[in-house]
């Protein structure tokens, strides 16, 4: 064996000794469960045979059942609607606040920091606060809208499908804006100032500067923020579970709450696993795109 080979082997061992504990942990706690879920989604594990065993391999029957059940389509549609509205608002609002706080004025960094707080607040608390604010009788939102004469009758926010969806969307936007704001604000600080100065000398208006310089330069960061935002929003669970429980009816049922419902309310573990797998596949498609972005950036960084 040559010295380089020896060195390489020693290096590999060294590498493994650092990375293996965490890697084994991830395999046991994440990879194994993913395969377990795939396995039980091809069986008929339910309350009847969960305890005493005897579940059978049923092929694609469970998937056939859930795809025939209209609730899967409803939940998928709700998940997409929820994600769409959240991103549609939280991204521009976050961007606007990021632009504001990237101006130099006294207290700008401190204010930017304070606005970061909602992102750190546990989802269950966010859900609690907004459930209170959207309460039809004593909620501040109805009171505000009534006193501004926007509405004359209190709106029963959480009692009807569309308004319940609007309520959870608003709550999620509140938590999501800081995430967008901080990431975009950080990206804004990296923009080269000389380009702007040159543009000002050339007589470009602020709007032109925004669309011709800021947007193109921020494109990678924006793409990254949108993709991550999509992933975090698409897998929402706590907020829905606490605020509406997927109701009324199934009007705010999303894929993750449906998976939980199948498994832990109806005890149909195979159906729960199958829905979770559908969610996972959809997330993976977007996730692979995100990983592609990360790798691209990695290569660019190492290339420097």
């Amino acid at each position, binding site marked *: 064996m040559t010295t380089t080979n020896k060195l390489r082997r020693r290096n590999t061992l060294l590498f493994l000794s650092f990375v293996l*504990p965490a890697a084994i942990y991830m395999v046991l706690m994440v990879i194994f469960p993913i395969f377990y879920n795939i396995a039980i989604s091809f069986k008929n594990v339910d309350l009847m045979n969960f305890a005493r065993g005897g579940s059978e391999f049923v092929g694609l029957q469970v998937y056939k059942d859930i795809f025939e059940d209209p609730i899967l389509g409803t939940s998928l549609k709700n998940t997409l609607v929820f994600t769409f509205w959240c991103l549609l608002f939280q991204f521009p609002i976050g961007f606007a606040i990021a632009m504001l706080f990237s101006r130099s*004025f006294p207290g700008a960094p401190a204010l930017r920091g304070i606005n970061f707080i909602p992102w750190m607040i546990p989802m269950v*608390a966010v859900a609690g606060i*907004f459930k209170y604010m959207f309460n039809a009788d004593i909620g501040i939102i109805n009171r505000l809208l009534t006193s501004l004469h926007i509405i004359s009758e209190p709106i029963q926010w959480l009692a009807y499908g569309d308004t319940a969806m609007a309520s959870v969307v608003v709550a999620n936007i509140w938590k999501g804006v800081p995430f967008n704001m901080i990431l975009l604000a950080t990206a804004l600080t990296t923009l080269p100032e000389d380009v702007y100065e040159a543009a000002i000398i050339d007589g470009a208006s602020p709007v032109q500067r925004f669309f011709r310089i800021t947007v193109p330069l921020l494109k990678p960061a924006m793409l990254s923020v949108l993709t991550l935002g999509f992933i975090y929003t698409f*897998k929402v669970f706590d907020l829905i579970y606490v605020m509406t429980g997927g109701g009324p009816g199934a009007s705010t049922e999303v894929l993750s709450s449906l998976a939980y419902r199948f498994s832990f309310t109806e005890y149909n573990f195979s159906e729960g696993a199958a829905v979770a797998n559908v969610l*996972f596949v959809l997330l993976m498609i977007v996730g692979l795109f995100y990983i592609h972005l990360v790798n691209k950036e990695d290569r660019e960084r190492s290339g420097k």
Partner: protein
Amino acid sequence: MSIAMKQKQKASRVIYLILGIAVTCLFLFPLYWMVSTSLRAPGSTFINPSFFPESIQFTAYVLETENGVSIWSYFMNSVVVSLGTTILTTILAIPAAYAIGRFRNKTVSTIIFIFLVAQMMPSSLILTPLFVTFSNLGLINNHLGVMLADATITIPFSVIILRTYFKDIPKELEEAALIDGAGPYATFLRIMVPVTYPGIITAISMSLIMSWGDMVFSLTLLTKDSLRTLPLILYKAMGELGVRWEVLMAYATIVILPIIIMFVFLQRFLISGLTAGSVKG
């Protein structure tokens, strides 16, 4: 710069400041509303509450839950779970992030891939398998089970944050230590870890915040009331106390308070944690 331009700039700074404060007040209003509701007299939330509480009362904070247990004992459960998760995360994530950040071989990209996938995975995906496995191991109704489950979120996040810090350490620093005769483990522990301390503080504080806020795993893995964590108690209370909003908002305030305190001291690390964990990958 002319005086006119300077004045114009000054004026625009004032306008930005006013705008900034206005945005902040509007944006953080839900938090004000939560705290101000929690300080109201019992039962006063049945009627339309005024913008400012008429009198400040702490009644809601000293109430016991339905089972006669003080809310602060659940607070301690949460402290145990989030500290345990964070210690476990730190021990596993730092060496792994170091290995991924410093070594170059074929497996690195695969391992990064696993962590990135784990970061995106919905918690509901692993609930049933963990439940079954933990039942067999006797880890249901045990805080250790929740710690192990919470760490499936905090470890990938921490590894991805820390990787960038380790990556940015100049090679010379590591080589100098190795030339001095220090072994690879000593170099890691005495040179690399101290150098990346901002990253490590970031990872620790993010782990604390994430495990503090977890409800899904506690909901599934803890069924004994006395073991429950604070977010779970807030959720349960919303079912049981339904209409006593001043108590619920007091619970929510207690859930949020440690996070605000951490924010005050660790703001810089938290913000860099989010950016390091997301954009840089």
